[in-house]
């Protein structure tokens, strides 16, 4: 189902908006696609990582002699094999996260690595590396981190943004404050004020492909790394930083990526593999086990959130105050900052204040996860809005429509919003049959909205025309959700040739210009713009070649539907339209190969709004929640490939539902993760979900030639509050702590029953 705003250009598109079979699909359904762990090089060694059994400890000594003497072992490295890094360095956290130096900060923290002829030998040698630790008290929760007598993880950590400036180190990495209007006056104006607290647990991105790479250092020191990442240029620079190498000493070749969701925007193994390969003079392959993925790679931050809203009896939100504390794991992170930027962003609130803290604890360093921080702030805001609607007797949809931000309204950060499609998404849900469908016994319905700002950043593209009239489009964006298909469609639209005649590929760091990470829902927006620019440059070239062939002036040649068309006033004899294929076939005779580039820093990423509607059924005796119906409307700007827009929405919903109901990191009292596997870290399985009706709303982004807004992230924002509001609708219970597992839901139902009986 697609709802399109009146947009004169849209209907004119020939290829944009069609459901092309993805160009990389055939390899993926036949098992031929090469993911990172699928590459094997001749003479390759296997690496294994020595990981800390302690959540917090000082490394007293590391003795690698026994490991080095073991059969098959070619290289053993520790933090001492890498250049020292200053805490003030921009990438300090990443560097010491990849291999610990003086201290370990979480169970699973890498302290050494081994390369040996076989994986079994490498693992055996890793087990033989003797590390002496002085165990320190582990700080596992936000409350523990902020206690007055809390052990300080990082002696250099002074709270950024503190007023007055912090003088003593603490576990609070930063403070962010936003405000607008007059909070006190706003609350004074309110007829109803509600204040609530929320808490969540760390969750993992849960990509099915574990991190993997192969590094091969040649005799000249030049190193090639094949790996799965969301950004191979970032892998190159990060690896170089850690090793103290020049960037250009490394080439990174992107393998197919088996899911990332933000978790593969940072790196873990590549510098270790490069260092081992450099020492051993052999290629080194490293693949994480699932347990390593859970214990040592990026969970999303967890948070404690307190929000206070004031509303007038007519439903206008007049004041809001939020206090957010995000735990980012062992190093500073941006959870709180991003939470502060999203908590009130969906609604026009004249008087507001946000204070957000980012704290560190002895758990794995958090990484980005799809709309980082926003699902948690939405959990708070959207469930409290539901309560306000209930209290004031206003329909939850009407309350949101009344307060929804629109073009020109000030963002939390002050600037006026460009054209956004929030109201359109709300209306799309209101007019959907789901909105008024009857509910069965023990069922409830929840509504929630979400917002994500999306980013632009740098992208590069190259278009090469082949002599048969087909095109190769090379970009630097790893394809994490079908972006090659959308690149082919945009290029086809620009060049006027069939998208099947376009082969989109992801180039390595030496084959295409610098391109930032595929993150922030930016690939189709920013890299798409680079492709469009490259194609437009190609069309200029094609017109010139056609002018040569027609003996005409280039200004008299237009590009129409894949053909150079003479439009001049002169004699049109011998100036019949020339197809791209004909021009490409004669390229040698008209000036040489046809190639064009597009490189840009993409400004104007447009935010994506989304509104979800969820029906649940709750077993009142066991607390088990079943998702029985789900509809999600999201503003895609323009859907270049509707199937993959729907896929992004549906995937976001599934992840959000998992986060809402059952996903959580469980630690024992020493900070050891108790559920580092897919059996007890419960991502939703097929039978846990219904069909997810994805409604694409299209309010074009003026900053993109086809109106694209990124769609990758916003979909994960509303599910948690949508589920929470649906559980309330079914049971009367408000649950404000994640996950809303059967245990927690039954506790709430039982407590409510006791209150009812007692009263």
């Amino acid at each position, binding site marked *: 189902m697609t709802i399109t705003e009146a947009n004169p250009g849209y209907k004119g598109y020939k290829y944009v908006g069609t459901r092309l079979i993805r160009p990389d699909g055939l390899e993926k359904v036949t098992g031929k696609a090469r993911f990172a762990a699928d590459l094997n090089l001749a003479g390759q060694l296997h690496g294994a990582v020595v990981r800390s059994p302690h959540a917090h400890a000082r490394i007293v000594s590391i003795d690698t002699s026994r490991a080095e003497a073991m059969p098959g072992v070619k290289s053993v490295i520790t933090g001492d094999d890498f250049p020292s890094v200053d805490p003030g360095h921009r990438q300090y956290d990443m560097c010491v996260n990849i291999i610990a130096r003086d201290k370990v900060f979480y169970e699973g923290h890498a302290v050494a690595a081994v390369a040996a002829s076989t994986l079994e030998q490498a693992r055996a040698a890793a087990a033989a590396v003797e590390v002496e630790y002085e165990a320190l008290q582990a700080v596992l929760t936000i409350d523990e981190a902020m206690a007055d007598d809390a052990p300080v993880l990082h002696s250099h950590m002074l709270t950024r943004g503190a007023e007055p400036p912090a003088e003593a180190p603490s576990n609070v990495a930063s403070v*962010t404050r936003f405000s*607008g209007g007059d909070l006190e006056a706003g609350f004074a104006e309110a007829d109803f004020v509600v204040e609530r607290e929320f808490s969540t647990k760390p969750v993992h991105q849960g990509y099915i492909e574990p991190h993997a790479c192969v590094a091969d250092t040649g005799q000249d020191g030049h190193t090639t790394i094949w790996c799965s990442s969301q950004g191979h240029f970032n892998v190159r620079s990060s690896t170089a930083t850690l090793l103290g190498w020049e960037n250009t000493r490394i080439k990174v070749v992107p393998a197919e990526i088996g899911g990332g969701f933000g*978790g593969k925007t940072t790196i873990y193994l590549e510098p270790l593999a490069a260092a081992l390969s450099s020492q051993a003079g052999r290629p080194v392959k490293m693949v994480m086990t699932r347990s390593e993925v859970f214990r040592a790679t990026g969970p999303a931050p967890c948070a404690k959130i307190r929000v206070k809203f004031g509303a007038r009896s007519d439903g206008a939100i007049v004041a809001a105050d939020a206090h957010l504390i995000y735990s980012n794991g062992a190093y500073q992170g941006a959870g709180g*900052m991003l939470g502060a930027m999203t908590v009130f962003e969906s609604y026009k609130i004249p008087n507001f204040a946000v204070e957000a803290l980012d704290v560190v604890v002895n758990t794995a360093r958090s990484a980005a996860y799809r709309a980082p921080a926003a699902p948690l702030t939405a959990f708070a805001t959207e469930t409290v809005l539901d309560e306000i609607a209930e209290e004031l007797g206003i329909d939850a949809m009407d309350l949101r429509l009344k307060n929804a931000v629109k073009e020109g309204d000030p963002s939390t950060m002050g600037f006026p919003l460009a054209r956004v499609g929030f109201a359109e998404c709300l209306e799309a849900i209101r007019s959907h049959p789901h909105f008024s469908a009857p509910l069965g016994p023990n069922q409830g319905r929840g509504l929630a909205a979400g917002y994500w700002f999306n980013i632009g950043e740098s992208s590069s593209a190259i278009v090469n025309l082949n002599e048969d009239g087909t095109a190769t489009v090379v970009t630097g964006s790893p394809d994490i959700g079908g972006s090659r298909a959308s690149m082919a469609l945009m290029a086809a639209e620009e060049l006027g040739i069939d998208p099947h005649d376009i082969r989109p590929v992801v180039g390595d760091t030496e084959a295409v210009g610098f391109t930032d990470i595929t993150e922030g*829902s930016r690939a189709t927006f920013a890299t798409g713009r680079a492709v469009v620019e490259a194609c437009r440059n190609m069309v200029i070239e094609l017109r010139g070649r056609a002018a040569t062939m027609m003996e005409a002036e280039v200004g008299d040649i237009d590009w129409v539907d894949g053909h150079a068309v003479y439009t001049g006033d002169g004699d049109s004899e011998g100036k019949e339209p020339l197809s791209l294929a004909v021009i490409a076939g004669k390229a040698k005779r008209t000036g040489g190969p046809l190639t064009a580039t597009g490189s840009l820093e993409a400004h104007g*990423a447009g935010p994506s709004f989304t509104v979800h509607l969820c029906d649940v059924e709750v077993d009142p005796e066991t607390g088990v929640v079943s998702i029985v119906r789900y509809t999600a409307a999201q503003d895609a700007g323009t859907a270049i490939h509707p199937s993959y827009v729907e896929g992004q929405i549906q995937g976001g919903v599934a992840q959000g539902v998992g986060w809402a109901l059952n996903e959580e990191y469980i630690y024992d009292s020493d900070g050891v993760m108790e559920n580092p596997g897919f059996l007890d870290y419960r991502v939703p399985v097929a039978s846990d979900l219904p069909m997810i009706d994805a409604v694409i709303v299209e309010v074009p982004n003026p900053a993109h030639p086809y109106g694209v807004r990124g769609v990758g992230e916003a979909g994960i924002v509303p599910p948690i509050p949508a589920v929470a509001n649906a559980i309330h609708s079914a049971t009367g219970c408000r649950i404000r702590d994640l996950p809303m597992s059967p245990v927690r839901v039954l506790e709430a139902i039982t407590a409510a029953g006791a209150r009812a009986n007692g009263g």
Partner: protein
Amino acid sequence: MAVRVHLSSNLRGPTGGVAEIEGSGANVGALIGDLERQYPGLGDALRSGVSVVIDGLLIAHPQYYRLADGAQVFFVPQSAGG
């Protein structure tokens, strides 16, 4: 170029809480230099981790972005994504 500068509320320390100020510069880098002269400390605050929004366009790395006379420049924290 004389422009109107809007600071997101987390960036107003050096201005003593003032949200809207005047500045000038041919591009955003020059503007930041001018603002630093007016409000010591503000330059540092605006040089890292900060994006601007001009005419509705979010610009992540704005140093050389050219300013038109009378432009409205909003300094905001840099966003990220997953």
